[in-house]
């Protein structure tokens, strides 16, 4: 017995010692391992939240105001329909000593534009011309108003000599950039450790090391936070918000993100819900407020009949959510030729936690006479059906895009690879918007596209959900950003 208690005491001492030795390291528990450390080859925020600490872009998105802020650039100007002239900050070096200059920017942007995963963001770039040591002209094949935003999110500037020497995979193994941190070490599946860049051009951060630790299981990530093993835990389920809020030594921080929950509606010509009145009825039959309150403890915002929040460029402030009105829904169904209701297939994926949501929606639809066949699909199979046009007639989906409604609209264009929507007027307006360089004109066109997609509903619009983080009280000066990236400039550790 004595031996056991001694062993326990020893174990306790060792645990404490590990915690103390951590010193000025900030540890972030992430829900998904980083799969690609070369930012040139990824567009996923789950990867970029790590790589952007090392490799930076020309611009930054001020995620609260939605404004673009010059970063490695000092300014930009659209000099003709196809050319954006960018001035590059002087006196900045990569941590291997290579200078950040026109040559480096040209190499980076042209390398990015040739990568398949970057086609959506930077595929429109034709080439980059060097004007002088610190000025480049980025030339596109067609007018491309999203260029600056794309450069902010995906325009990672890499050191050309090093990148060419080690190649894309070598760069992933040891990325080098201009950022506040330098890559130190990676233990596969366990941790990624970065060390402070003391020469960071915008001034070094206050703590020495930053560690990302993948802990995919929600309960384990929360336990690690409560035990003081990690300082920030990402992706806290809404159901755990209250529990963490009342826990000692831990705060909860949340922000309305760029993801929307919705139910894709199949409007292909042979679909039973092709008639816009049926899709309107679906929107009227569902009590969005109740779903948000019961299933997500109210941690979100009801979508106003469009994808995106007011932080998105092109958000239409005049649109309102469809009210919860089952009587009107029944009436519309009768007008559309379904006085006795109809039966549709409704699919969702197991991995997304959408089961309860889908069941609740199905029950509400049942109330107005729409009977639902539930079909649960594994995540990969769900995506396969989506691209094979087998995901009919309804499917619960989460969509995350950059904060410009163009991206959301693009998904529903007739010739988009996954589109179950057919509306020539919508296609026309979105096409105009995608070439409109004047911001006011573009905003108006995108707003009009949103209005069309609300009246002839592309989806059952549900809500935008908050991204919830658990934060140790030893962290001050940090708040979550809606783009899911981390900014540590003002962070202090006790």
């Amino acid at each position, binding site marked *: 017995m004595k031996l056991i208690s001694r062993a326990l005491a020893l174990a306790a001492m060792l645990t404490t010692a590990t915690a103390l030795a951590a010193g000025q390291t900030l540890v972030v528990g992430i829900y998904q391992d980083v799969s690609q450390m070369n930012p040139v080859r990824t567009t996923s925020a789950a990867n970029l939240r790590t790589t952007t600490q090392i490799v930076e872009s020309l611009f930054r998105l001020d995620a609260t105001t939605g404004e673009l802020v010059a970063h490695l650039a000092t300014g930009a100007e659209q000099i003709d329909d196809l050319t954006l002239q960018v001035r590059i900050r002087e006196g900045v070096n990569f941590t291997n000593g290579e200078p950040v200059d026109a040559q480096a920017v040209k190499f980076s942007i042209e390398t990015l534009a040739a990568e398949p995963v970057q086609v959506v963001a930077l595929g429109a770039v034709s080439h980059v011309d060097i004007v002088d040591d610190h000025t480049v002209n980025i030339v596109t094949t067609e007018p491309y108003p999203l260029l600056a935003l794309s450069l902010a999110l995906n325009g990672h500037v890499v050191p050309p000599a090093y990148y060419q020497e080690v190649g894309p995979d070598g760069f992933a193994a040891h990325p080098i950039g201009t950022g506040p941190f330098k890559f130190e070490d990676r233990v596969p599946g366990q941790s990624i450790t970065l060390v402070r860049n003391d020469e960071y051009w915008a001034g070094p951060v206050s703590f020495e090391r930053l560690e990302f630790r993948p802990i995919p299981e929600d309960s*384990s990530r929360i336990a690690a936070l*409560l035990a003081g093993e990690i300082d920030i835990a990402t992706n806290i389920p809404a159901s755990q918000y209250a529990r963490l809020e009342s826990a000692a030594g831990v705060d909860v921080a949340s922000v309305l993100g760029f993801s929307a929950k919705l139910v894709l509606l199949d409007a292909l010509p042979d679909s039973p819900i092709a008639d816009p009145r049926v899709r309107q009825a679906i929107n009227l039959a569902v009590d969005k407020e109740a779903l948000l309150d019961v299933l997500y403890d109210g941690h979100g915002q009801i979508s106003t009949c469009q994808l995106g929040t007011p932080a998105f460029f092109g958000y239409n402030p005049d649109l309102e959510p469809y009210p919860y009105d089952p009587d009107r829904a029944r009436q519309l169904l009768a007008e559309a030729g379904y006085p006795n209701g109809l039966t549709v297939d409704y699919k969702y994926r197991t991995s997304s936690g959408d089961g309860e949501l889908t069941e609740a929606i199905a029950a509400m639809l049942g109330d107005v006479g729409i009977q639902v066949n539930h079909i649960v699909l594994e995540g990969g199979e769900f995506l396969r059906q989506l691209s094979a046009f087998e995901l009919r007639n309804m499917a619960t989906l989460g969509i995350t895009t950059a904060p410009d409604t163009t991206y959301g609209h693009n998904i529903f264009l007739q010739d988009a690879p996954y589109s179950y929507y057919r509306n020539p007027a919508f296609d026309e307006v979105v096409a105009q918007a995608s070439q409109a360089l004047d911001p006011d004109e573009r905003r108006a066109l995108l707003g009009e596209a949103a209005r069309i997609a609300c009246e002839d509903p592309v989806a059952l619009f549900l809500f935008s959900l908050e991204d919830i983080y658990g934060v140790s009280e030893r962290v001050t000066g940090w708040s979550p950003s809606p783009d899911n990236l981390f900014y540590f400039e003002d962070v202090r550790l006790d």
Partner: protein
Amino acid sequence: MRSGSYLLRRLGNTLVVILGVATATFFLARITGDPVDQLLPLEATQEAREALRRQLGLDAPLPVQYGRFLADVVQGEFGNSIRYSEPALGMYLSRLPATVELVVAAVVVTVVVGVGLGMLAALNHGRVWDAVVSWIALLGQAVPGFYLGLMLILVVSLQWGLLPTGGRGTWQQLIMPTIVLSSYYVALMARMTRAAVLETLRLDFVRTARAKGLSDRAVNLKHVLRAALIPIVTLIGLQIGGLFSGAVVAETVFTWPGIGRLAVDAIFARDFPVVQTVVIMSATIFVLVNLAVDLLYAVIDPRISYG
């Protein structure tokens, strides 16, 4: 000499099994979906998808891909992970020690605790210890590993602050995953041992041994346990595969960076090269362990010989 040809024949069978597993994995993985769907955002254009497919070598016809895959595997080349763009074999091998460490710890605990409890129950047949062991075995087999793991974290890590909640690197971090992984097998082993020992106690040679005037201790350890070892070793051999796949739960709850988590992530991401590597390597290990168990019989039981 004759046992040498037996070994060769068994090894030949092993190769056929592995080829079958490799082929099945290759085609099954590919009919379940496309990794490109997962790598590109919803708004990606058709051209972007095709360009990525080319970059990943997924654009060739399936028979051509299969031919390349077999030619590569024969040379020990398993390709690069689609998601991580690292060599899949390297990823597997870097994760393997973590799982082996966990499985070995669980086997040791299973054998020591499981056989010990089983002996205890059998030798106290019908008395209190027998009932206690029955209850422990029932609980061990009934409580799901996932629940047990979370409860351990809640109580041992959060309430008592004794052990870290997860990760790998120190011996403390090995304790709770081992308990979770072995709990089911300890219970199973205790039951099997109890049954095998009870069976053996009734046999003539045990009576003879006692009649010779050997002490209880000598009879139990030298004769009874040895005879009961056959079913026990069989069980361990068969359960090694189960332990490797059962490790997924312990690895997930305790963030233990082993091959179980690697495999599950790869399957969800349709990361074909990693899925193939994990399945082929694990099948090889499983088949070889079974072969080793069969050979071990001859060592334990002189009545068994191969030819």
